């Protein structure tokens, strides 16, 4: 996993609430055995019309979206399916962080494990950010994971919370599987004290 320390970038604004993972990456694109390449299908049904042409009114197709590494989304982003293809698609498209007021549990977990930072701001700060970006669409936001702050275009800084362990892993590029594999002895001790409940054999 690529470490995440800080990021300063312009944003794409997609203010709808309750954006589900079926929108982020529709199920028909999940028949892949790869992690890469899903960015081409990110928000496929919102980005592209029936004729396969980009919809000019969709924020990701706006000229101001080029190069933006931050997606500013609405509340409860990433609800629905557990597909990790959702953060993979966002990362593959070029996003490194999503700013919202709240994330669905599985999406947040998946994002943190793949190096996409979910940033939950207060409703007031989030509302302010939407206003500022409406006035200047190319304005930049600075996200600093070390201090857990987001600095908005108007210069105000706002704190956000990230689980301390996930933060440690992101900052240092620690991979969680490597961490768990080092628990081998403790797992073996647990197993010897707790016989298996079932056997699929």
């Amino acid at each position, binding site marked *: 996993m690529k470490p995440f320390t800080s990021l300063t970038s312009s944003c794409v604004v997609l*203010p*709808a*609430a*309750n954006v*589900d993972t*079926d*929108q982020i990456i*529709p*199920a*028909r694109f*999940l*028949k*892949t*055995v*790869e*992690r890469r390449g899903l960015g081409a299908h990110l928000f496929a*049904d919102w980005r592209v019309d*029936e004729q396969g042409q980009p919809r000019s009114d969709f924020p990701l197709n706006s000229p101001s979206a080029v190069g933006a590494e931050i997606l500013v989304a*609405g*509340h*409860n982003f990433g*609800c*629905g*399916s*557990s*597909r*990790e*293809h959702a953060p993979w698609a966002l990362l593959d498209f070029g996003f490194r962080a999503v700013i919202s007021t*709240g994330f*669905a*549990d*599985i999406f947040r*977990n*998946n994002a943190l*494990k*793949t190096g996409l930072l979910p940033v939950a701001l207060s409703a007031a700060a989030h509302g302010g950010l939407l206003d500022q970006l409406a006035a200047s669409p190319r304005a930049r936001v600075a996200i600093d994971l070390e201090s857990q702050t987001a600095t908005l275009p108007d210069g105000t800084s706002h704190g956000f919370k990230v*689980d*301390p*362990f996930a933060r*440690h892993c992101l900052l240092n590029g620690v991979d*969680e*599987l490597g*961490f*768990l*594999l080092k*628990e*081998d002895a*403790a*797992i073996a*001790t*647990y*197993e010897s004290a*707790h016989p*298996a*409940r*079932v*056997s*699929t*054999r």
Partner: protein
Amino acid sequence: MTRSANMSPPETLVDKIWSSHLVRPETESTPAVLYVDLHLVHEVTSPQAFAELRTRDVRVRRPDLTLATMDHSTPTTPRSNGHLQVLDTQASTQLKQLETNCDEFGIKLFGLDDSRQGIVHVIGPEQGLTQPGMTIVCGDSHTSTHGAFGALAFGIGTSEVSHVLATQTLLQRKPRNMLVQVDGTLPSGVTAKDIILAVIAKIGIGGATGHVLEYSGSAIRSLGMEERMTICNMSIEAGARAGLIAPDDTTFEYIAGRPFAPTGADWDAAVARWKTLASDEGASYDRSVQLDAASLAPMITFGTNPSMAIPIDGRVPHPTDADTSAERVDLDKALRYMALEPGQSLLGRTVDVVFVGSCTNSRISDLREAAAVMRGRHVADGVRMLVVPGSRNVKRAAEAEGLDRIFMEAGAEWREAGCSMCIAMNGDQLAPGQSAVSTSNRNFEGRQGKGGRTFLASPLTAAATAVAGAIADVRTLS
């Protein structure tokens, strides 16, 4: 609810399962290392996890606690010489990859030709693998289904699938508890599906984020296991990763005699242990909600997430009545997508497709309910009805009872087992602009096919709609 004899503080069912699965407790700086008793695997969310194991040269730690099946992208069209034809080359590659992975890592697979193949959340309980007090995970958000047995069961992402394959553990923070108390007697024509749609409408699409739902109360107790699975299945649609119900005699009777259930002295010991799995009296919940079962009507969704549901004889809400501007925008967008007007009734709205199936409502009791409505009636002209059993076992049981003939004589399609039109990955899908009443769990935009419109409801409502050719109230079906 029981109170243990010792002086420890009263615990919820989740507290008990949690504490008995800790390899390491959580601290401020690290999550708990939680042991997983059963890991269910399917073709869509596992290939990249197995690839990760190969990259690291790591084996599957406990293949004996792992079971794989094929369900999401499998065809449901009739078998030819006993075999399913997978025409989609991408799906075929993914299915073959699962075979290779299971072979290489020593995992039992209920493949396409296995007589036990089916939807992952149907076969676990059906085989007796899902048992009270267990921790169960799968790379699928509807893993909450298994909570019906008093198990802590939740969906995980593909990275976490690799963690469980390699270590049989997960890094987890303890979830908060929410009590969902449903008391009273369900009126005729109102089912478990209607309870859970009403619960989600009350809590909201993200209202249970960070929580596990514990369903309790006399209405829940009176439900059979398959109905309890329908309830727990949709916990995720309120944002909860898991939902569960304390086990009781109904649970034990369901498990007894199933292929992987304990037997003899092991059975007695297991039941004794399972009987301790209830929340203690006085256990505290972070939140609670109450529902009166007697006041419920059949529920149906009108919008583009499962919380947008109304009683079937109700009216589509006015976005202008929404509490917040975000909700107003959300509702407006949903009604536009669904081609509905505020204030209109859904009754009489024509549909193109009726789908009975999915991990929510594809078990034998669901098929019996739908068949009881279809018996002696016919699917209306212009409507396509698909009935997709949840597993090959369910299919055989239904055929033994003659349910397949009832559906086919009514003009419905009787299909092979799988997820089918719930997720529309296998070719079973709506065409753009088509509408469906569906017994599945998600009505997100395009969920059943790009541009398709989904109305979620119970098997009874789905069957009544198929007969009427338009959304119908089973209580007044002529």
